[in-house]
């Protein structure tokens, strides 16, 4: 079978106001997503391409009977594409929109770590931040001298051509 693994994080060790974030690497930078939204992490597998979909939507995958669209985050952020390698993984996330929720997968270079970040530690992003449009960034946090870009996945995965009502 594939490299499916379920995340098992000890929730009791978290400070009351801190949230846990799963971080992943994308072109040297570290990004974070709310860990409660992560459904699972899968190894990269071939997908079925979708007709007339934006290029960053690689296709759909079978996740135990559910059809899940897979988005290449490098392409979404207009980063230079790389060949998928051994560490390339699909992070399956649950996103919430006005009419309900959806499950989608994002392809990232590698998963990195799990960090506790309180809202107080989070800095709002500067207006000009290059590749990633600020509207998708929830905030910036510093953990052991590294900057973590916390992504607002609900915005990111329901925007533009991915919008439900499009």
């Amino acid at each position, binding site marked *: 079978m594939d490299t499916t693994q379920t995340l098992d994080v000890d929730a009791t060790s978290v400070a009351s106001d801190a949230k846990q974030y799963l971080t992943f690497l994308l072109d040297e930078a570290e990004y974070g997503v709310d860990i409660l939204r992560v459904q699972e992490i899968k190894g990269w597998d*071939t*997908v*079925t*391409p*979708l*007709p*007339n*979909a934006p290029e960053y*939507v690689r*296709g*759909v*995958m*079978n996740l135990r*009977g*559910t*059809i*899940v*669209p897979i988005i290449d985050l490098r392409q979404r952020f207009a980063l230079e594409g790389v060949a998928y390698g051994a560490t390339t993984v699909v992070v399956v996330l649950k996103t919430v929109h006005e009419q309900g929720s*959806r*499950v*989608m997968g994002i392809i990232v270079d590698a998963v990195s770590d799990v960090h506790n970040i309180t809202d107080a530690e989070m800095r709002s992003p500067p207006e000009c931040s290059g590749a990633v449009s600020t509207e998708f960034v929830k905030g910036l946090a510093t953990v052991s001298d590294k900057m973590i870009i916390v992504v607002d996945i609900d915005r990111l995965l329901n925007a533009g051509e*991915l*919008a*439900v009502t*499009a």
Partner: protein
Amino acid sequence: MAIDITQFRQVFFEESLEGLDTMESSLLHLDEDASDSEVINTIFRAAHSIKGGSATFGFQELTSFTHVMENLLDEMRAGRRQVTPPAVALLLQAVDCLRGMMLALQDNSAVDQPRVDDLYAQLEALWHAAPDESAPAPAPTVPEAPEASPQGHPRGWHITFQPHLAMLRSGNDPVRMFRELTDMGTLTTRVDMRQLPPLTELDPENCYLAWELTLESVVDERQVRDVFAWVEDECGLTLTPLHAAPVPDTVPVTATPTPAATPPAPTAQAEAAQAAAPERRVNGERRQQAAGADTSSIRVSIDKIDALINTVGELVITQAMLGQLRDGFDVRDLDKLRDGLDQLERNTRELQESVMRIRMLPMSFAFNRFPRLVHDLSQQLGKKAQLTISGEQTELDKTVMEKIGDPLVHLVRNALDHGIEPPAVRLAANKPEAGQIHLHAYHQGGAIVIEVSEDGAGLHTAKIRQKGIERGLISADAELTESEIHDLIFQAGFSTADVISEISGRGVGMDVVRRNIKDLGGTIEVTSSQGHGTTFTIRLPLTLAILEGQLVRVGQDTYIVPLVSISESLQIDPPAMHVVAGQTPLYKLREDYIPIVRLCDLFHLPHDAATSVDSLLVVVEGDGHKLGVVVDELLGQQQVVIKSLETNFKRIEGVSGATILGDGTVALILDISGLMHLAQQHTGLVRRPRRLAPVQQAA
């Protein structure tokens, strides 16, 4: 042992609601044919079981309400009360009211008490009005109720009591009843022994006797009937009031008909108006009922369950056989293993089919509400219409059935409101006064076809065209075929009704109908001939969950083409391909040219020259057009389980869903009409053969 009867409440509600449906449809039938005693019996039985059930569960209001209805029905059944339209209308309202009460009890919400009380009073009044007087003159006897003074009461009752043979066996003794009657007044009895057989043939447990009783007492009929309450369905019972006409009484008796004779007309009208007025309320209740049905159970016929059990039995046997093979497996057993696996495959398929069949319900579930709807609406609109239904046994998936209900209601309403002309207009057009509305369902291929047709005025082509130009849907000089014009009525915001009525004409409608049907993967078409009527044809997939598909390979991807839409598959003959500059390539198929498309072009997917050989053409048909799809390989046919792409993504033009293949990969299911749409956009033109003129309907 204490039994918790509340666990059966749900069953009681379901059965009673079904009983109410029976009563409703029978009452409507009664409307047309007042003399049919079997119909009255059916209604009576339904009311009787509801009464019995509600008494068991302690629903006092239901019991007393149904009791009055039952009394009325009993008199009608015995022929002592004439079946009059106002009485039927009242009973129909009572059925609605009961349904409301039951639904309220079911979700523990408040009962519409004023309405219940009002109807109860009306029923009581109707019942108290002397039944024999209503028999000769079918006047509603309501006005007489207030005069229920002691003089209005009969001086006594003449009772004919004919127990059925088996009455004694249920433990009922006539002596006790007679004793009770004696307590009310002076009782004279006469025994009728004509049925008594010779002693040699006599069965001591049977009751052969009948009685003629005369009770002199000022009691009302109900009190007398109560005495016989336990045996009312085990005996023949007739009550005739004794009018020992003393001199002062004759005056009011002869005088009564005069004031009573005038009110009937207004009363009848009022009743009719009342019958029409609750229309909205009725709909509200219906909707509640439909909403409730989502979570409740479905009834499955026992033979479907038996088939399922049989299949499971076979599956177990197959499994046991395969299990045996496993122990000490030898290469020589390979054939057996293969056979076993074949059998397993067959069992699985049968099991799947049986399970799917459980979800199938006959169309009558959706059609049953229409007799009432047509009855009420035609009264409200002052039109005459007859509804005929055929093919109600055609089965359809429960989910599809639930979703098709509202569009069908809309179509039937439209048929009455827009289609059927008022009686005068119909007569002037040499048509029978009553319009015909026909609902017809049948299977065709893997789809169900539902037709709603009516012999009304037909679509007014010029008017629709005018309206279409006004609304900016078409340009003023557009050349359209008749069917293209008719198609305009499915556009949003389109209505040609001159008067915006409560029923239709606000322009929300046909577009919603079409969208709902499209969401179900179906299509709707209209054919109409002016002056002769209109037919709407709905085509729906039998089930939403499973599709019979042809797997095809295009490049590296596998797609599924719904088998129903494939008309043929053939090897491409290169000389038959014609490329017109800048247009869709055409393929000469026998005498016809059909447009051909490559999926990678339509879908903007990378074209992989290494694996594409363009060898085969699958000719598909949809929306009346043909289209050739170039594929590399035909992979086989199989049933696929449809998975939605919309759950986690969104609708994609040209694709109706996805499925998971045996190897776990995802394959997309092609949506033929979407594909044609895409092809049109892609090249700006797909040859559209002119469709034939709509078939003339026989008048």
